[in-house]
């Protein structure tokens, strides 16, 4: 098991190096020079020269790459050109919203999807199954920003249980902060839960027809016991893959929902940085997201090995 984790960690490191090279090269191959790109067509030559100096564009390529990577490792992501503050500060501020929101949405979607998928599989072909399949179809089809607006109209405007948007910050206390994230998390979780419930259902149906389920029944386990003791863990293997993919998406892909609820999240940061041609921020945030995706993949791999002993090679 330790060996498995170490090999996976090594491949994680290698992926990061390759990703950083690709991102660096992409910024470098943008036609013209990053400084004049950032300042636009009408920039004064002196301003461009000053920015070039600030960005350290005078050095050689390898030196600049090492400087960038070295900076990130020590937590120095450079200075945002538009906000004039360190990128690390910007990102940390935004992560305080995006990370809890992504985790919240993921927990919701998993907690809803697994029991729902289980019920649908256990009641296959019964009205409960049809109802669940219909509801998840709808959940996938409905755009989440529309669902978000619906939530705002019902729970914020009519019932006044939640505020319609904004984020008070964690300084205001955990409860108000979580409350502000609830509606966005629900809106994000709905399509994810629908997909996950369908995956759970089909994965469980596959497992229920396996020979070892028959063996379990022959031992004297009831259908419910056999499902709980033998089917669930096997059925979770494909579900884990989807959960991993969903987390990566939720972290950066929540931009529309962030806009609906006026949340200062990572998605909005990168969107603004792109429209304002703030390459320093773009470069760093993209690298950070790549890091998050690779890390999640690593965690999913480790989770696989925990669930499925065939993946840990012993001795």
């Amino acid at each position, binding site marked *: 098991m330790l060996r498995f984790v170490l*090999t996976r960690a*090594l491949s994680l490191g290698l992926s990061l190096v390759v990703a950083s090279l690709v991102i660096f090269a992409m910024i470098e191959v943008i036609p013209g020079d990053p400084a004049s790109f950032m300042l636009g067509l009408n920039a004064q030559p002196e301003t461009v020269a000053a920015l070039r100096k600030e960005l350290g564009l005078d050095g050689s390529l390898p030196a600049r790459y090492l400087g960038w990577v070295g900076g990130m490792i020590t937590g120095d992501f450079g200075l945002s050109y538009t906000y004039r503050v360190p990128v690390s500060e910007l990102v940390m501020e935004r992560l305080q919203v995006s990370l809890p929101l992504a985790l919240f949405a993921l927990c919701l979607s998993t907690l809803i999807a697994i029991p729902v998928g289980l019920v649908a599989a256990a009641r296959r072909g019964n009205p409960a199954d049809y109802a669940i399949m219909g509801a998840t179809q709808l959940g996938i089809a409905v755009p989440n920003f529309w669902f978000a607006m619906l939530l705002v109209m019902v729970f914020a405007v009519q019932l006044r249980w939640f505020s319609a948007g904004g984020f008070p910050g964690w300084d205001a206390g955990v409860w108000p902060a979580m409350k502000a994230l609830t509606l966005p998390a629900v809106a994000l979780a709905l399509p994810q839960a629908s997909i996950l419930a369908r995956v759970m259902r089909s994965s469980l149906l596959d497992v229920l027809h*396996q*020979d*070892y389920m*028959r*063996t*379990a*029944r*022959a*031992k*004297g*386990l*009831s259908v419910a*016991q056999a499902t709980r*003791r*033998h089917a669930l*863990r*096997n059925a979770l293997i494909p579900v884990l893959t989807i959960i991993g993919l969903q987390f990566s998406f939720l972290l950066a892909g929540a931009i529309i929902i962030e806009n609906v609820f006026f949340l200062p999240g990572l998605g909005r940061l990168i969107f603004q940085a792109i429209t304002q041609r703030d390459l320093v921020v773009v470069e760093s945030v993209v690298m950070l997201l790549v890091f998050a995706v690779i890390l999640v993949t690593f965690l999913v791999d480790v989770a696989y090995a925990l*669930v*499925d*002993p*065939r993946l840990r*090679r*012993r001795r």
Partner: protein
Amino acid sequence: MIRVADLSLSIHSAPILHDVDLSIAPGQVVGLVGESGSGKSMTALALMGLLPRGMTRTGQIWLDDTDLAALDEAAMCNIRGRRISMIFQEPMTALNPVKTIGDQVAEALLIHGRANRNDALRIAAEKLARVGLPQDRFPLDRYPHELSGGQRQRVCIAMAIALHPDLLIADEPTTALDVTTQAQILDLLKELVAEDGMGLLLITHDLAVVAGMADHVAVMRKGEIVEQGDTETLFRTMSHPYTRQLLEASGHVPDGQAIPQDAPLLEVRGAVRDYPLPRTSLFGPAPQFRAVDGVSFTLMKGESLGLVGESGCGKSTLSRAILGLEPLQGGEILLNGTPIAPDMPPARRAGLQVVFQDPYGSFNPRWTVERLVAEPFHLLGSRPHDWRDRVRDALAEVGLDAAAMTRYPHEFSGGQRQRIAIARALILRPELIILDEAVSALDVSIRAGILDLLADLQARHGMGYLFISHDLGVVRSITDRVLVMKAGQIVEDGATDAVFAAPRHAYTQTLINAAPIIPPAWKEAQINEA
């Protein structure tokens, strides 16, 4: 003591079982024999109360004084695994891959509240040792994927006998296993019956297996028991024509075999095939596994050559190399003097064709039969203008009429599909056909028909056969010469009759001795009568 009385089953008014009567006493082995679809497994599932949904059942199943047919699901859960337990055909998939073998055996005790966790694990260790998996080599924390098929079947048996059941049902317990492993598992079952005094219902399609195991035999056909009685008496008298037909089909020898010519067709010289194994270190070279290790033989034109060996011995790897699907790491393979390799021109592939074991998996289900059979024409560059006529002729040769051409594979039975596969192999008139376990999945009567067909085609067209099988009986009945393969090497090579009559290599002797047989004296009665 278990007694089945007037058991009938039907699904949506289609009858499955009809008035089955059967009883199994403690310490008795009852063999239930029949072909696929005869209702053997349904009888077993009815005893276990595990019938598929939608079945209607009438009749009684008496376990001592309890009618199991009248019990509800909760009461049956209490019987299953404790008083009646069952093992199945496919040991590779019968165990949960994510739980240890210790947990899976202990679960049988825990679920019936017979022990706490520590005791259950201790008893599981005892039971595993009892079935030949001692703790020093097979600790409780092993996972199923770390065991071979035979070892997994032993785990299933340990699980089934954990609570001293009155009856053990074994549904084709050795069909998926090699002949030597089969012999060991059958010995183990016999020993457990003798020592524990439980009854054993042994379900099999193989008459030779019941002949060696059972005290009492019941022969099943289309949901009915057509004949049952004491094993020796039943074999000696064979009063029902169906029983006799089964016996004849199982030992069927096709007549009119072709005479091989004295010209070499396929020459394999020092063939070596290596596979990379998973890496053990990150940067070192991946270790190699030598699946075929310096194999040499020659197959003459019009000859039937058998290749026997147990699973994993390299038979199928060798056949893929002969088909030119995978490269060799040493040696060469020549067909008519020209080399076979993955990059050979398509026209050369037309000279050799193959029929695989699984008549279900080897066809694209969305193609019509005429398209399937005509597929090898692409090796020639384009389909000849009379391709439909040639497909019709090929189907006629395997005994299917032209109406089959526009139908799809799922509309045919297993035996018919195997005929279609032979037609596909035949259409280019190849000189060599590789038959890779081509009749292993078929019932004995269907198998006899296919063997006759193969012999007849050979007599007419004079092609060579390379007959790869783990079934010694089939190889014996159809081949002129036989190769015995073990661990990637050919250990014995000789005329089939001579090898079977006087095997020289110890491994061949083991194989032949392990194969179950019907005592010749029992069969003599049949022959004399005929």
